[in-house]
């Protein structure tokens, strides 16, 4: 176990290093780094000073060492637009994104798993077929367009929900949240559903195929032969066995939801880090883009690591290391 974790940690470090090299060469070596990293408004003398400070006159490998050293100390440059450290700016926006993602995951759990169970148990009935057909629609709907249809329907035509923003926030442990007020929930509802729809469809299908597979297993037949009530078979025998892959996928989806929240945040003007990325791309705020890439890579590496380890802990059948040849 310790060896497995150690090996995965080393792999993760390697991935981070690889991303840093790619980002470094994309920003510093391919384009003109002065143009990318120094705001066009600064004067000639200041520009020269910045070139010296950023070490842009050094050989390329020294520049990379410089970049890596600064990155390890949490310094990925200052935002031109907001004139504050890029990392700080992103960390400020992170809670809003996390809030959205957590609500979306919650919706996925309470809708995706039960619907998937029903679809799997009544696979050949109209109900099951209907659910499965609707799920295809669920992941076919382009995320951004679906969000706009929501706005048109619930904000413009019906006027039930606000079209954009986060609403009033309440500080809990010094971090602003909007899910603690009713008004906040009105704001979070549409973006969260928008983010969750494709995910619900995915989890629903995964659960359904798991149920179909588990239903014909020997242990379920045996339970049925013993005369156990169908409801209990579903809850205790089928659900428990299919939950491991489903929970793993939900865990992995946490990461993709952070990525997909970029779209949702843009449509609903949700002040999260995805919106920040898009705004920074528009405003040519390169340090923020670089910081976002590095931070999100770190986040993903950590999520993948946790999911891998959890999977191994949850399911004893998973082999941690390849058997010796």
């Amino acid at each position, binding site marked *: 176990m310790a060896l497995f974790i150690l090996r995965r940690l080393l792999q993760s470090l390697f*991935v981070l290093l*690889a991303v840093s090299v790619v*980002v470094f060469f*994309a*920003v510093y070596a391919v384009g003109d780094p002065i143009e990318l990293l120094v705001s066009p408004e600064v004067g000639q003398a200041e520009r020269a000073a910045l070139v010296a400070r950023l070490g842009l006159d050094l050989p390329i490998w020294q520049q990379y060492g410089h970049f890596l050293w600064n990155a390890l100390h949490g310094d990925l440059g200052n935002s031109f637009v907001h004139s504050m450290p890029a990392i700080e700016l992103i960390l400020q926006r992170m809670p809003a994104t996390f809030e959205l993602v957590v609500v979306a995951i919650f919706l996925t759990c309470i809708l995706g798993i039960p619907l998937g169970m029903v679809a799997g148990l009544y696979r050949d009935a109209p109900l099951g077929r209907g659910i499965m*057909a609707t799920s*295809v*629609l669920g*992941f*076919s*709907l*382009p*995320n*951004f*367009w679906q969000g*706009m*249809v929501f*706005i*048109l329907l619930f*904000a*413009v035509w019906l006027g039930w929900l606000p*079209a954009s923003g986060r609403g009033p926030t309440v500080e809990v442990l010094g971090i602003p949240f909007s899910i603690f007020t009713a008004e906040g929930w009105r704001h979070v509802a549409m973006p969260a559903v928008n983010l969750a729809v494709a995910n619900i469809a995915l989890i629903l299908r995964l659960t359904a195929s798991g149920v179909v597979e588990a239903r014909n297993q020997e242990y379920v037949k045996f339970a049925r032969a013993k005369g156990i009530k169908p409801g209990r078979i579903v809850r205790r025998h089928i659900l428990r066995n299919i939950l491991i892959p489903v929970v793993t996928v939900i865990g992995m989806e946490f*990461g*993709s939801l952070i*990525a*997909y929240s*970029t*779209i949702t945040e*843009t*449509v609903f003007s949700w002040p999260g880090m995805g919106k920040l*990325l*898009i705004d*920074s*791309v*528009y405003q040519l705020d390169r340090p923020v*883009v670089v910081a*976002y*890439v590095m931070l*999100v*890579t770190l986040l*993903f*590496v950590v999520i*993948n690591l946790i999911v891998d380890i959890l999977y191994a802990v949850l399911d004893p059948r998973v082999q941690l290391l390849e058997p010796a040849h």
Partner: protein
Amino acid sequence: MADTTNKPSVPTRDPIQDTPHRHAILKKLNARPTIRGSVIALALLMAFVLFAPFFAPQNPYDLMALNIMDGRLPPGAESMEGSRYWLGTDSQGRDMLSAILYGLRMGAVFLSTVIGTVAGLLAAFKGGWVDTVVMRLVDFILGFPTILVALVLLAVLGRGVDKVVIALVVVQWAHYARIMRGRALQERRKEYIEAAQNLGFPSWRIMAFHLMPNCLSPVLVFATIQIATAIVLEATLSFLGVGVPITEPSLGLLIASGFEYLLSGDYWISMFPGVALLLLILSINIIGDRLRASLDPR
């Protein structure tokens, strides 16, 4: 030697075409009405896309054809010259019907899928250290969500049609490489490959004409679904403003351009391109889903 009548008659049809398996699959596919609907919808969309210049009332990217006085007209309104805009117009007086038809053509990013397949194929067959490098690279790319990789690539590279294609290829080739490799490893041990090797064929020939045709079916099934993914991805990136430039036709851009007018109730600018996109994705997904279900023996 001249007497051929006693010999058993030579089968005139390809034996593969007669396998009951194939019939069963086609029958299964045919049994669902949704499948037929999807195929018809897809064929119609394709026909529209191919013949867009003949169908479309105007060329939406020819500035001479546009009249700013016709801006933001609701569906069915009459233009200044008297012709009718069936689906309304956008802010620059572009006919929505025409713009959708042209936009779909840019949305068809089949090219990147083809490049992805070929790249994955070549990479998967070499084995040894090439295999190790390729598979680590695949793991690396698949470790991140597609949208994130594409978004980051475009954020760093800047916008442009070529860059969108690069981003799509980068995020999609890995899937094909993984599928092709898995299939090819199974297939490589079979006798016909050994026979071809013993006949002294060069390895590229064995790869291209012996191994590849026998590995293609799972890739093709996967590709149907990936086409939909690619189209959505392109539209999404263009919608976010990091995809193709504004001067290029793209459904994503079209939908994005209508977004600012959505709150004032001008729904048609965003709605109709969205419906076209949804129809395209939905029919591809249904076909892909059924195809997979039919080919899966379970």
